[in-house]
């Protein structure tokens, strides 16, 4: 099952030099389609990326960009109405098309997930300790009784829950929001997974509690040497924790680069727009925010060519931007981008909106 994947001849999909340890997770040309009343919707369309050992990959995108669907596809948690094609390989083993029974030994063991809503993800009628114990004993039948209890308390202690022995006997409603999220993390790392997928792990939390949870996640990554995929819309969180960043828009990758290039030399106009539209905590700016005009497209009616072209300030319309879909391609320095015009665009940070008052620029309704 864990035959080490080695493919030294190939260059990395994401433009990095292939390191001695092969990628833990390889996603290739992943497509996820849902049948809806209005016809099929492609939530993820031809996504490829690799997750390397002990690396933190940040996946950024707005609602509907396909970032959560991707993580559900990796874990085989999509509903049966979803049509998944392409390839997801965990240490060389193909996951797409596996039966529930075949996936179960991996899920929660080698690949684990932290969900956004800890209250909805924990069972309200069982004690927190018992739920963590279950997550362990599903995969390790040898651990029972006092040993199992000790392991649960140890895990709660690792994630910084005070008085873990007593807390293990409490129910989820007796925990605060930050503690529930930490209990979720304890459950996710219970079997020391290779891959930890965290889907908006701090979105529902207050900022001081978010800081606590992020600190726990950092500590755990250093301790377990897991590879982490952190999915979020918060660019600040990504800036703090990720080694590499993948930006998604309308089910496709716009840009993949190491974290510094992403923030200091963004090559895709969408990434540039996101960074420009953020109000800054660390500078006084009476300037207008450089917003992205329009709205994210409906997945039912994606624009032809580059899905971002109707909102892109640099698009050639009519021209290749509206006619031809840009594929992910290499830029110098391991940076990859799906844009026809990246080389021609100059990005100025904190670029103010060029047109006049947004009051009179009209919104498009889909």
């Amino acid at each position: 099952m864990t035959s080490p994947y080695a493919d030294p001849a190939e260059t990395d999909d994401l433009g990095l030099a292939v390191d001695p340890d092969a990628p833990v997770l390889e996603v290739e040309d992943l497509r996820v389609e849902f049948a809806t009343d209005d016809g099929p919707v492609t939530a993820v369309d031809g996504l490829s990326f690799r997750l390397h050992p002990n690396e933190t990959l940040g996946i950024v995108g707005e609602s509907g960009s396909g970032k959560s669907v991707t993580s559900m596809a990796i874990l085989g948690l999509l509903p049966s109405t979803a049509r998944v094609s392409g390839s997801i390989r965990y240490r060389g083993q193909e996951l797409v098309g596996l039966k529930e029974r075949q996936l179960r030994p991996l899920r929660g063991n080698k690949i684990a997930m932290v969900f956004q809503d800890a209250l909805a993800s924990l069972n309200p009628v069982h004690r927190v300790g018992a739920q963590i114990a279950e997550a362990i004993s599903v995969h390790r039948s040898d651990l029972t009784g006092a040993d199992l209890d000790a392991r649960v308390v140890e895990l709660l202690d690792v994630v910084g829950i005070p008085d873990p022995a007593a807390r293990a006997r409490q129910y989820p409603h007796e925990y605060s929001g930050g503690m529930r999220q930490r209990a979720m993390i304890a459950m996710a790392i219970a079997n020391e997974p290779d891959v930890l997928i965290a889907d908006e792990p701090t979105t529902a939390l207050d900022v001081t509690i978010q800081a606590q949870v992020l600190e726990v996640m950092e500590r755990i990554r250093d301790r377990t040497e897991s590879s982490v995929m952190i999915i979020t819309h918060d660019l600040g969180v990504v800036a703090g924790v990720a080694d590499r960043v993948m930006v998604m828009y309308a089910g496709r990758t716009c840009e993949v680069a190491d974290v510094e290039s992403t923030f200091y030399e963004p090559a895709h106009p969408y990434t540039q727009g996101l960074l420009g539209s953020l109000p800054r905590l660390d500078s006084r700016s009476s300037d207008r925010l450089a917003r992205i005009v329009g709205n994210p497209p409906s997945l039912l009616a994606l624009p032809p060519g580059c899905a971002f072209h109707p909102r892109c300030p640099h698009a050639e319309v009519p021209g290749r931007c509206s006619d031809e879909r840009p594929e992910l391609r290499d830029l110098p320095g391991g940076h990859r981008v799906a844009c026809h015009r990246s080389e021609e665009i100059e990005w100025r940070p904190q670029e103010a909106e060029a047109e006049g008052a947004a009051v009179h620029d009209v919104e498009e309704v889909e």
Partner: protein
Amino acid sequence: MTAPSSEPSAPPSSGPSAEPLLAVRGLVKEFPIRAGLFRRTVGAVQAVSGVSFDLHRGETLGLVGESGCGKSTTGRAVMRLIPATAGSVVFDGVDVQRAGSSALRALRRRMQIVFQDPYASLNPRMTVQAIVSEPLRIHGGWSDGGAERVRDLLDLVGLRPEHANRFPHEFSGGQRQRIGIARALALDPDLLVLDEPVSALDVSIQAGVVNLLEDIQDELGLAYLFIAHDLSVVRHISDRVGVMYLGKIVELGTADELYDQPAHPYTQALLSAVPLPDPRKQRERQRIVLEGDPPNPAHPPSGCRFRTRCWRKLELEADGVDTSACSEIDPLLSADEVGHEVACHFPKVRVMV
């Protein structure tokens, strides 16, 4: 007293010396705790305990804090959407808490609220036209050029005239928030209470609504009470900012004072916890991680409410400083020590961002 503002765009008058548009003094809001079969009142939670601030015409005051700090309750009590337990709210010389029903109606035209969730706050069965014109019909401005007014309002918030006949579900979140803003502006108010107006929106959409709010303020000279938990948005839009913790304002100053020279240990922890979208800066920063969660507001700590999580108190105690005042005396807001108002026995400016 009740004369509603007649001219559509009163210029933003006044420096701080002028009479404030809104003066809140010692505002308290208690919610009863009920228990048992007969739901008897067994205690009370003070969601807001003694909040005071001024808001001038054309000014934006940001209220920030974490969930449960009382910022939304403050906004609602200011508008008397919920009755205050104690304290006074004076809007342009009129006591909001004691106004009779007709006076209150007149006041309500001049203070409007925009809610967080644009999916829940618009009636799904009403067209945009009906939603935006409803305040005009209720307050009797419909017959006098109401339809034209609706068209102007939609234009002001960046929607097209033909959008008037559509229903809320046909719009995206950002557009719905624009409809909510148009409705709030229909009666030409002097004050908008904005309760987390951009929190439910995606980043790229949020920027458009923030810009819109700033443009409208420039054009109409409104005052905003901007309630949000996102400290970056609040800094961007606010002239002055108040930080709330457990029902009290712990620090109040101009946006630059508060963000560049925070003096309260809670404000400092809050600022340090916000991740900056700048990898080098973010990884170099020192993060003050507060221990534990905010205490139960039904049983707030004695003295300073922040003392149970206060990192400075620990630092001072390690240096042998006597911090008994923290647990004995409730610190009041004072501008004596650092130049802006801070409620701490040991205020000290520390640059956090």
